[in-house]
């Protein structure tokens, strides 16, 4: 346990989450074992309703599992109280949502600094950090804009900046490109790529193949369980021309 490199950032064992009872029992997550290593990008794919969002919520402590264990950074979190969970989310987890979930009345920079303020940083430190992050996501010139004045892709980049604000151990993204057009998706993909290169740990649930294709590891989920796992790294270089109709 002393060697943090060997400790997965996220680990689950026998994870189950169900809603309802009897006839209407829904097994959203039905026995999931998952290890996410530090610096890894993992994509979880599956049709809607396969339980992938629920899995993400449980991983990030937004929801509690019905059964099984969740470990974050070597610490078991499935039995933490609401207060400790909140603290954990604040310090160790960054969320990115499909619907961006920005506060409409706050400017880009105010949205980003919100999590820093909630974590008890001074207004000045929070603002400095937020400005820095906006620069990193390429929105330094949009800091004073309200979400309504930003494009979808820009909003999602603000949300990603917010997720990074407290230097989380893991970023959890739920369909981050679900509401974006092709060009904006590419922006977000680039950003995730740069996060990956910077050594962030990412778990993305999605049914967008494009974002899934950026992952190191791709997990297919069906009916609450993992059914397939693929390492994508080490691709098919040299064949691109053929894909475009250029004969070898």
């Amino acid at each position, binding site marked *: 346990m002393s060697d943090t490199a060997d400790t997965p950032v996220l680990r689950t064992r026998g994870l189950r989450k169900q809603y309802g009872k009897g006839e209407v029992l829904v097994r959203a997550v039905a026995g999931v074992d998952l290890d996410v290593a530090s610096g890894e990008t993992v994509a979880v794919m599956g049709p809607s309703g396969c339980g992938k*969002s*629920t899995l993400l*919520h449980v991983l*990030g402590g*937004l*929801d509690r599992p019905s059964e099984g264990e969740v470990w974050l950074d070597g610490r078991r979190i499935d039995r933490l109280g*609401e*207060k400790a969970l*909140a*603290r*954990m*989310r*604040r*310090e160790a*987890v960054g*969320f990115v*949502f*499909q*619907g961006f*979930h920005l*506060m*409409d*009345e*706050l400017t880009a920079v*105010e949205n980003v*600094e*919100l*999590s820093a*303020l*909630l*974590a*008890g940083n001074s*207004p000045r430190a*929070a603002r400095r950090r937020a400005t820095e992050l906006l620069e990193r996501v390429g929105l330094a010139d949009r800091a004073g804009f*309200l979400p*309504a004045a930003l494009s979808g892709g820009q909003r999602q980049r603000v949300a990603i900046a*917010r997720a990074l604000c*407290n230097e989380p151990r893991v970023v959890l993204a739920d369909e981050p490109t*679900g509401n974006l057009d092709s060009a904006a998706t590419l922006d977000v993909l680039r950003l995730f790529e740069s996060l990956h290169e910077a050594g962030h740990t990412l778990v993305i649930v999605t049914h967008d193949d494009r974002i899934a294709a950026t992952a190191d590891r791709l997990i297919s989920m069906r009916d609450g369980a993992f059914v397939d796992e693929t390492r994508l790294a080490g691709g098919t270089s040299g064949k691109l021309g053929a894909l475009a109709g250029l004969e070898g």
Partner: protein
Amino acid sequence: MGRVLLVGRLAARSVRRRAVESALLLLAIMAATTTLTLGLALHGVTDSPYQRTKEATAGPDVVASAGPDFVPTSDGTVVDDEGFRQPAEAAVVPADIAALEELAEESGVIAHSGPYPAIVADLEVDAVTTEVWAQGHDPDGAAVDRPELTAGRWLEAGGVVVEAAFADVLDVGVGDRLALNGDRFEVVGVAVTAAALPYTDVCFGWVCTIFTAEEVINPSSPPVPSTARRVDFESFPIPPDDAGLVWLTEEDLRGLASEQDLLSYVVNLELAEPAAAPAFVSGHAASGITTEPVLLSWQDLRDAYRELVEVRGEVLVTFSWLLAVLGLASVAVLVGGRLADQTRRVGLLKAVGGTPRLVAVVLLAEYVVLALVAAVGGLAVGWLTARLFTDPGAGLLGSAGAPSLTLATAGVVTAVALGVAMVASLVPALRAASTSTVEALADKARPPRRTPWLIALAARLPAPLLLGLRTAARRPRRMVLSTLSIVVTVSGIVTLLAARNEIAREWEGPSQLDPDAAQVDRLLLVIAVMLIALAALNAVFVTWTTALDARHSTALARALGATPRAVSTALSAAQVLPALAGAVLAIPGGLALWSALSDEAANPPLWQLLAVPPATVLVVAVLTLIPARLGGRRPTAEILQAELAR
């Protein structure tokens, strides 16, 4: 016809779909209409009970009474116990019975009873000692003034009948025992009469002139007959300030007097022309000689009862306006939230060809219906509760249920209810009706407002206050309405504190024996309860609305790591902060209102005023606790997911 049906159906659906809100809306308007009804109904309320009592008791058209006086007989003075210089000696001049008897013989008088003797006696019952006017009466029933029993039986030797209002205050009933000037009697009955001024103003003899004379008559002493008894001036019995009335047999009454020349006498007259009673009275204007008869017409007596209740009516009308403003504030919050929610319906209606007018009518219909129901409810409740306040006019028969519900009252109340609903809903309804169909169909949620300085200020505060201030700042209109609601409520309460303080000062004596003080006290309590209840309802509802409205941002804050407690505290703080502002503003507001209502600038004690803001904050914090707690604990993941499904 089809259109009316459509409008009706849509309004009914909307009411049913949001039943809780509709109920709150109804309550808010009803609180205002009830108080208004009460205020208006108490106006002139005693006229008919007095009439009824007069008929039922063969009440007199004119009551004439005369009492004895002490006339100083030497220039020598002595200094009494309290340091006043008093005549050394006086002669007792008895009441002018002859003059009373002559009155009964006058033309126009068709019947009379009396003269009956009366005297001020010390009354002891349980632990209470007070003074009372005791009047002798006919055990077999008189031609004029036959007090109507509300309990027990009429006079018999050794028995006493207590006037109803007085019995109510003393809390005595048939079978109780009491002592008059040390002699023991049993209460055999409780009765009402139309032949005396209302309780606390009961009087016989010269003292009564202060209730009837337009200017103070300078009393002059009667001639002293040679047979007059010489006494110590100090033994002159001073009529009490607040006296009730009891009846005894004439013989028992005479037994109460140490000397027969100390008795007052009362004659009840029935006139051929009751309407001419005031003329009869002024035809016998008091000469100013203290032992001669003083006359009261039945109109004088009726007005005295009316005045008693009218004061309450005025207080109520004033407070009903406060409640109306409060109602307006809550209705505006409710309507604002509802109409925002109906944007999509508006779009649909327009898309299928509804004109802006039809849309406005559909939106307003709902509130018109609710306002009408509230008006009817308010009229009913107000009319039923009015008897609570006319009751000790318990001195009158049939005062229960007596408040009259005139067409004018109903009209005013309905108009106020409709007005409140209209003022609150007209602007949003017209705005909704004139929005573009496409925009309405897209149903953009009402975007929150941005108040930059508040947001910047909030960044410097700890997390709960940060979230709370920002939550409040998202909906400035609601914040203003919350503040307004608190201003109105707390102003009302400050006014009530001032009023109570003044009552306490005015009725310094044994106020537990004063029905007026007790009455007004009860009235103020009821108003305070209504004010607070309505404001509490408002606070709870606004918090709940805020929790719903802010569910997305609170869920988000929790996803970002705010604890449930921080979020609950924030939702509470969003109410508490405007409440604090409101309470502080309300203190000068309430004092100003009171000085407008009353001539006396009797401010409540400083500690009470200082206690108002913290008390308000505490109450609002407690009230908002539960909705805020519920709002803070909603499952985060579900809300964040649900937002996508929209």
